[in-house]
């Protein structure tokens, strides 16, 4: 059989396309269970099936109670500090992994109640990624840059993220931040967003144009440590395995009235709030 140059080139073209397409499709089918670790795990690492938090609002009284948790998280994760930007730009472009907001904003679909008591109305709540059991962000991500680990952590691979921001549209909790500007860069006055002397060299800084969020301190869990915000919260944030009936979080949930953010959307958030006050069941 002899073929001319034109036929040969056609054949090469078609088989190349088929090859790339085929490999991509079958490669994708194999990846049913995602496992990010490449080395043998640290024996100290914390093991759970569904990590979650219970936030005990009665233990959060002053602004400092909130701020020390926020600082603990943001400093070890090299979250850029954009406070030197003009207020209008900062609010639009800031990165936050953990922050606080009032009841109305935290639970916007809770019944609107003009007669609600003033204390609750003015109280601040901690907000972070809910590490949902059925996360909408994971469902929509076109590259599996955001994925769910077997221990329930909703992870974010900042090296695979293409910056399409579909996850930001999908997340009902506004938990995701996009790097609108270079987080390793400086503001107009030359002030770096991450101060060189404060940079945590053990945690990667991010690049421009990717999405990031709370990753439940996966790097600390791997070393047997609790998440940073939990550690400094004086018991206001309790960490544990929601699938384990004997865990502290489950005991509190069984004993106290707790609420979650937007449960009606079916994402099944793993963050519970105790709003009644008083000591929790220990």
């Amino acid at each position, binding site marked *: 059989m002899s073929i001319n140059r034109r036929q040969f080139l056609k054949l090469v073209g078609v088989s190349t396309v088929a090859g*790339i397409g085929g490999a*991509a*499709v079958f*490669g*994708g089918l194999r*990846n049913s269970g995602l496992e990010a670790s490449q080395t043998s795990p640290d024996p100290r690492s914390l093991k759970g099936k569904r990590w979650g938090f219970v936030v005990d609002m009665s233990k959060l009284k002053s602004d400092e109670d909130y701020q020390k948790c926020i600082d603990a998280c943001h400093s070890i994760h090299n979250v850029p500090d954009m406070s030197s930007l003009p207020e209008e730009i900062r*609010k*639009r*472009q*800031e990165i936050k992994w953990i922050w606080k*907001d009032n009841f*109305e*904003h*935290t639970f*916007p*679909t809770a019944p*609107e109640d003009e007669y609600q008591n003033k204390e609750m109305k003015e109280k601040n709540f901690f907000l972070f990624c809910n590490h949902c059991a059925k996360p*909408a962000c994971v*469902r*929509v*991500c*076109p*590259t*599996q*840059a955001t994925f769910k680990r077997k221990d329930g952590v909703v992870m974010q691979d900042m090296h*695979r*993220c*293409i*910056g*399409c*921001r*579909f996850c*930001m*549209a*999908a*997340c*009902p*909790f*506004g938990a*995701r*931040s*996009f*790097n*609108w*500007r*270079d987080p390793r860069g400086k503001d107009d006055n030359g002030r770096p967003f991450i101060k060189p002397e404060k940079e945590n060299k053990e945690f990667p800084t991010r*690049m*421009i*144009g*990717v*999405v990031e969020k709370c990753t439940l301190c996966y790097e600390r869990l791997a070393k047997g440590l609790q998440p940073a915000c939990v550690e400094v919260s004086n018991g206001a944030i309790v960490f544990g395995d929601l699938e384990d009936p004997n865990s502290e979080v489950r005991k509190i949930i069984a004993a106290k009235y707790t609420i979650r953010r*937007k449960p009606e*959307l*079916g*994402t099944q958030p793993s963050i519970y709030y105790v709003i009644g006050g008083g000591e929790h069941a220990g």
Partner: protein
Amino acid sequence: MLDKALTGGRRYWTWIFVLLAVIGVAVLTYLKQFNEGLGITGLSRDVSWGIYIGQFTFLVGVAASAVMLVIPYYLHDFKKFGKIVILGEFLAISAVIMCVLFIFVDMGQPMRITNVILYPTLNSVMFWDSVVLMGYLALNLIIGWTTLGAERKGVKPPQWVKPLIYLSIPWAVSIHTVTAFLYAGIPGRHFWLTAVMAPRFLASAFAGGPALLILLALLVRKTTKFDPGYEPIQALGKIVTYAMFANVFLLGMEFFTAFYSNIPGHMHPFHYLYAGIEGQGKLVPLMWASSIFAVASLAILVFPSFRKNEKLLAIACVMLFTSLWIDKGFGLVIGGFVPNMFEGITEYWPTLPEAIITVGVWAIGLLVLTVLYKVAVTVREDTA
């Protein structure tokens, strides 16, 4: 056949160079965005998609609308569309190319775009959208090029192209349905969480796309020796009229459900878009302009005697196209983000660099369209 785009009069070349100049400025602006990040746009953590994604959505509709010529011509043997079906297919090609570019300029890490293919994710609607869009581009390139090539030689198109033409019909519906699913499957964005999103997308596409095609056909007649004919344009006018009524009807459904149910989350985006909330309402004039244009265009289109007057038809098409461009290319996306997930208001308005890049992508689309139409028209002039 592409050589036919290389010969043209002074007017043709002036137009080409104007487009190239606009594209040049836009490319430089894009380089600035590439280096400094999407922070140079009006986007924010609350409104994380804007005019780029809006234009993408709108143009998927323009691309899908080619099917409004393909169905009558190939399925119902409506011969009068024989002359203009190629204009529809080439418009689809140009529209899909703009869609791809709008996605590209919206990405934070465009150099990683191949990750969508390297890690195909079957549960992501965006993966499917890229698959169907690429497929649609390939179908229209093959079909358009083959049928026009056959026409140039004065022979019938080869038999193997027929199945592809039939395939292109459900495929056109699929591209806009899947694009609607980008929005309609997201929990917590009340404005988008509606089962009539895909039907409304199709209705507005089948109104806006053919309206643009009418204007292009009139322009082709005016600037070349090829006349698409009076009757095909009239037939398109009827399609535009029916589709626009369907679109306005479906929009009415959205208003009813939101306001009769009285559910705050469903009403808020409409309040924001059409009245403003707490004094914030940058889109209010635009949305009202869109509504007025929609009603005015229908007031012309619904009367056959008005519609038969090509001047009035053209005016109606301009108003209708503008109305849908605002509604779908801008309002649809922003209404999903305002109010935000905390029921707060963060407004969005495109910045100058963002506007320049948007115009630049349109200029690339127009350049592709001009070249393709030049080829098609020259073939027609030669064989006439």
